């Protein structure tokens, strides 16, 4: 038995490593811890504050560990009116969905957990549509007025945001002529797609902010009116899961943006090993992207739900269709065929 397990591990070492360490579970958890800490420190600096300092000798780097440990040991409260099975199910499922999306992202030549035989971008979007569903379940199961309003706002926003995002990435698909993320990255070794697809990128980026529910689109968890939106009733470890889901979602969509528009793991060669080089550039681009997201977070007001939905349907959707047309025309002129 043991031998069989060992031989299984030996045979599939690379896959198991990718699932459990990089770019799988450990990387995702590590990113969540880093991102929350980085957000708190970076935003604090913009607010002329220090952020966490004393926990951990330098820079408060243990702060998130302390928070997580505390949340794990806190009492779990299930509201009397809540639907308990769904309440627990939502809190477990929510971080899983964006984590599954990450499995499709190539981190380096050949370094991708699930190679989806050429349709990985479509599968990415297919999985991403599950997120609002579970998000609604979490709000509905808690049976609190604030959570229910938050859940329904989540639906409005996701529908208004996801369709433009999908149409914008169709522009990329047409330009690259493939559905495969790895193929898209390889084609960008000469020129990043943000240049030929600039209009599409703008649409994608605004829709992307709506998908990750950050300012100016943090409408479902609008703290000034809805306390914590769909998360209001969650305690302890379940709340930890919710926070994690939030940041894993950010990670998944940011990685997709990098892959589609900013050349993925392509970059000047610094390390001799192409795999390490790819990972280095991927993480560098990721850090720059989340810094930009956090800066937007602090400089803008939140939109109202009607303004956000209007922006999605009235501006982003026509622009994304226009982008597809422009892409077709441009490709026809340059390459003489689609």
């Amino acid at each position, binding site marked *: 038995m043991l031998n069989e397990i060992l031989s299984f591990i030996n045979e599939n070492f690379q896959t198991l490593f990718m699932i459990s360490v990089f770019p799988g579970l450990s990387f995702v958890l590590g990113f969540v811890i880093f991102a929350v800490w980085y957000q708190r420190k970076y*935003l604090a600096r913009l607010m002329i504050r220090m952020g966490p300092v004393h926990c951990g000798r330098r820079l408060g780097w243990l702060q998130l560990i302390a928070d997580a440990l505390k949340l794990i040991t806190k009492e779990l409260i299930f509201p009397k009116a809540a639907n308990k099975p769904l309440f627990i199910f939502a809190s477990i499922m929510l971080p899983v969905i964006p984590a599954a999306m990450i499995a499709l992202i190539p981190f380096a030549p050949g370094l991708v957990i699930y190679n989806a035989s050429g349709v990985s971008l479509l599968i990415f979007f297919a999985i991403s549509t599950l997120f609002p569903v579970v998000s609604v379940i979490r709000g509905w199961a808690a049976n609190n007025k604030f959570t229910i309003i938050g859940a329904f706002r989540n639906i409005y926003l996701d529908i208004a945001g996801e369709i433009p995002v999908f149409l914008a990435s169709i522009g990329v698909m047409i330009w690259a002529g493939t559905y495969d993320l790895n193929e898209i990255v390889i084609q960008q070794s000469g020129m990043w797609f943000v240049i030929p697809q600039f209009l599409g990128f703008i649409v994608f980026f605004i829709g992307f902010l709506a998908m990750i529910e950050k*300012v*100016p689109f943090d*409408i479902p968890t609008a703290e000034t009116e809805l306390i914590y939106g769909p998360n209001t009733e969650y305690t302890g470890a379940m709340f930890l899961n919710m926070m994690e889901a939030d940041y894993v979602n950010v990670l998944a969509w940011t990685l997709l943006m990098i892959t589609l528009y900013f050349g993925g793991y392509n970059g000047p060669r610094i390390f001799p090993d192409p795999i390490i080089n790819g990972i280095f550039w991927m993480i560098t681009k990721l850090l720059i992207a989340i810094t930009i997201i956090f800066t937007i977070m602090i400089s803008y007001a939140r*939109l109202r739900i009607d303004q956000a939905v209007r922006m999605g349907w009235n501006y982003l959707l026509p622009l994304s269709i226009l982008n597809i047309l422009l892409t077709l025309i441009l490709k026809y002129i340059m390459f003489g065929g689609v």
Partner: protein
Amino acid sequence: MSARIRGYSPFTEIEEVGDGLFRLNMGPQHPISGQGRFIVLTDGERVFDIEMDIGYSHRGIEKILEYKTFVQGIVPVERMVMLDTSNILMGYVGAVEKVLGIEPPPRANYIRTIVMEINRILSHLYALGLLSESAAWNPAVFLWTTADREPFLDLLEMLTGARWSYSFFVPGGVRADIPRGFVERLRKTLDWFEKRIEVYEEAWIYNELFRMRTEGMGVVSRQQAIEWGLAGPNLRASGVPYDTRKNEPYAAYGELDFKIVTHNAGDSYARGWARVEEMKVSVDIIRQALDNMPEGPVKTRMPPRPKPGEAFFRVETGRGEMNVYIVSDGKEKPYRVKISPASFRNFFAIEMLPKTQEILLADVPVLIYSFDPWFLDADR
């Protein structure tokens, strides 16, 4: 007493009302509620009614004042608004001076003016910070304003010995003269603060998304502002050029030259804008008061007992006009003190607005904080 309290729990009286409508309970524990409670009748997004439930910090100051002598009354009164203590206190002290029939010396008037204008700046900074925070959970501007209050608090501590509640005004003058080095430091702080106001205007007041959220929302017309009895910057943002400092000058305001900030739009944006403009006016007033400050004593003797009679005194606090009505029966304690603070009047508009125009749930915090509520002075 307490046993009865424990048996009673009205906190979650959320019942379904009508078809698809329900009441949402915001407060007294809610990120925006402060010490009040807003019962919002909504269908999920559109708001049909806001009912204000206040009194969560009611202390009965009006009753307590009947048990205190005129000077002892200073302590409870100034705890009505911590951010704005001297303006509030001026209302009480001014009314007491009227009852007693005394006049403070001119130097005291100028010192009072300076302290009151610093307090007004503190109060408006708070209003601006919370307005920005309510439009998004974006505490950057809020924390900048918190940081910018500190130099002024240091100055007040230098002058009076305390950061917020300093009981600095007494009937007949102020407690102490200006210390050495205060004037220079104040001038320096004002120079620096003028640059900060420009930063706020660029970062927040001219911010496109902030304007999208606030412009055209919560419009109070001039007629409504008068009928509902709004006060302060909220009244002036609706185009009524009323400022107690100009209309019924007290302290040294009659001798200084400043303008009344008015805006004709009457929406939430105008109310936020008016506060920024008033901070500029306050800086100007402090500069003038420093330039024109006369020499002399800062206090006159105060008679122990007033004549029987009544006095009505109005004062412009940071949140608007407050008036104090004192009835005296000739004893050393007041017979009746009626304090009508500005927030109490402004709250009425918050209740009325959803009935006159379309307000969405996301607008509720912005609407409330554009009126700059302070529950403690409404509750008294």
